[in-house]
């Protein structure tokens, strides 16, 4: 059979279009199903109250607070470390076997399943360093998981700053650090922020890394120090979905909705940072 180029064009368009639709449709269906089923559970009280009656009633406040703590703590640890490593790789290190090894390690680190990070954190932070199951141990574990994302996106953002800016700045009597501080970092900042938000987003949504390192099944009060355990949204969701008999369905969906909003908000934030960066770029 011979098809005209108009017919092949039509077929190609249909195939590509339906592939796109098949990718997008499940996301929309899943998200709307969760939001619709969770809507009746959502209320001001559900957000800000402690759980009651074996978590079958009341709110999820400690889980929201806990996830916020974990995200902030992970950020405080992983952003300075990741940014430092990225600046070293992009601005200071010369291309060598050493830097290639570091890059291979980073790429491989990004591919490790999250439960492995959890076990590593259990071994190193909880047991060996005797931090116990605590917010600090969980944040350290999540940081190791987040670092590859932050390092590679930040390095990419730094490298995207034209080399000519560096040459001009050095040529005008700038030191390398002055050049980084005044030109390279400000120019790369939106790209770096995007990577940071995406990395922390993953940290906020993961269960396995905090399972053995800091997440609590149930706590009647909020954590009072970084050496306390904490509840967290993803783990709480896992618990009420599988571990508590007689759990009202709308509370499960309500919790999932809150977690989704948490993560989606961060994603939207990352996307708007990126588009804001494109608009204000001056080169």
């Amino acid at each position, binding site marked *: 059979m011979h098809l005209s180029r108009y017919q092949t064009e039509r077929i190609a368009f249909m195939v590509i279009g339906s592939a796109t639709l098949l990718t997008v449709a499940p996301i929309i269906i899943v998200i709307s199903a969760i939001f619709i089923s969770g809507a009746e559970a959502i209320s001001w009280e559900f957000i800000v109250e402690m759980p009651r009656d074996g978590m079958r009633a009341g709110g999820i406040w400690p889980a929201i607070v806990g996830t916020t703590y974990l995200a902030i703590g992970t950020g405080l640890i992983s952003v300075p470390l990741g940014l430092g490593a990225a600046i070293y790789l992009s601005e200071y290190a010369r291309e060598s076997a050493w830097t290639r090894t570091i890059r291979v390690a980073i790429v491989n680190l990004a591919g490790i399943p999250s439960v492995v990070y959890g076990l590593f954190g259990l071994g190193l932070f909880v047991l060996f360093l005797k931090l116990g199951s605590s917010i600090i141990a969980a944040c350290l574990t999540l940081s190791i998981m987040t670092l590859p994302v932050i390092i590679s996106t930040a390095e990419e953002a730094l490298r995207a700053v*034209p080399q*000519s*800016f*560096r*040459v*001009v*700045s*050095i*040529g*005008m*009597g*700038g*030191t390398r650090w*002055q050049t980084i501080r*005044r*030109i390279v970092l400000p*120019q790369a900042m939106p790209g770096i922020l995007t990577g940071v938000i995406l990395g922390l987003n993953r940290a906020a949504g993961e269960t396995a890394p905090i399972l053995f390192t800091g997440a609590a099944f149930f706590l009647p009060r909020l954590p009072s120090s970084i050496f306390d355990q904490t509840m967290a949204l993803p783990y709480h969701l896992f618990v009420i979905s599988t571990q508590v008999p007689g759990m009202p369905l709308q509370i499960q969906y309500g919790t999932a909705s809150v977690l989704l909003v948490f993560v989606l908000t961060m994603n939207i934030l990352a996307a708007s940072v990126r588009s804001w960066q494109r608009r204000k*770029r*001056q*080169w």
Partner: protein
Amino acid sequence: MVNIAKTETKISIDHLYVRYEDDGTESLRDIHFDIPIHAITALFGPAGGGKSTLLRTLNRLNDMVDVSTRGSVLLDGVDIFSSNIDVVTLRRRVGIVFAQPIPLPFSISRNIRYGLELAGENRRSRLDDAVERSLRAAALWDEVKDRLGDPAIALSGGQQQRLCIARVLALEPEVLMLDEPTSGLDPISTAKVEASLQLLKQDYTVIIAPSSIQQTARIADWAAFMLQGELVEWNRGEDLFSAPRNKKTEDYITGRFG
């Protein structure tokens, strides 16, 4: 070679070899000449002759890439490669303007202030003075005085190149190096840049890699003909163009190759 004992020497280059280590090419071989103070010295010759490399060597900008250097470059009698020279200070004393105008991603006035801020100057009045003074010296002030806060990238190509010159002048260097500063410019902008160079040489030592032989002939007090990493001939501009002593120089300036 020519004796310039009557004029004072600013930079003295002696048996300079520069080799790029990453690909092993020798970019400069046995360069040996003097650059007089308060004059325009033009480095000219076909592409690949080592003009840019020589300029980038004179303020050690080549330190940023993998090069090895032999020989000496004396600035006011002090070797710029000696270990006790402060390379940051050297680059303030020997400023460079590149072929492509590269405005930094700031406003017009911040582009000028930038170099001074690096050196720790933060007095507003000093900075504002420097902006006006150097923009005037680069013949750009009248065109931009009402929009100093605009992004520098919004300027035309010719204006950007004069901004880059002004930016270096703000540092009050002793030596001003320009690597084909008019290569992308229209004849009117080129004339403006050349006119300002004639004024600048009274206060500075100017080294330029001109964009063309004609430009070399127009502006060079001293001219150095460079071919494939070697200095072929060096003389007063008028003498070199009226009576070249080397056959290769003659062939090049009469258009037989290049």
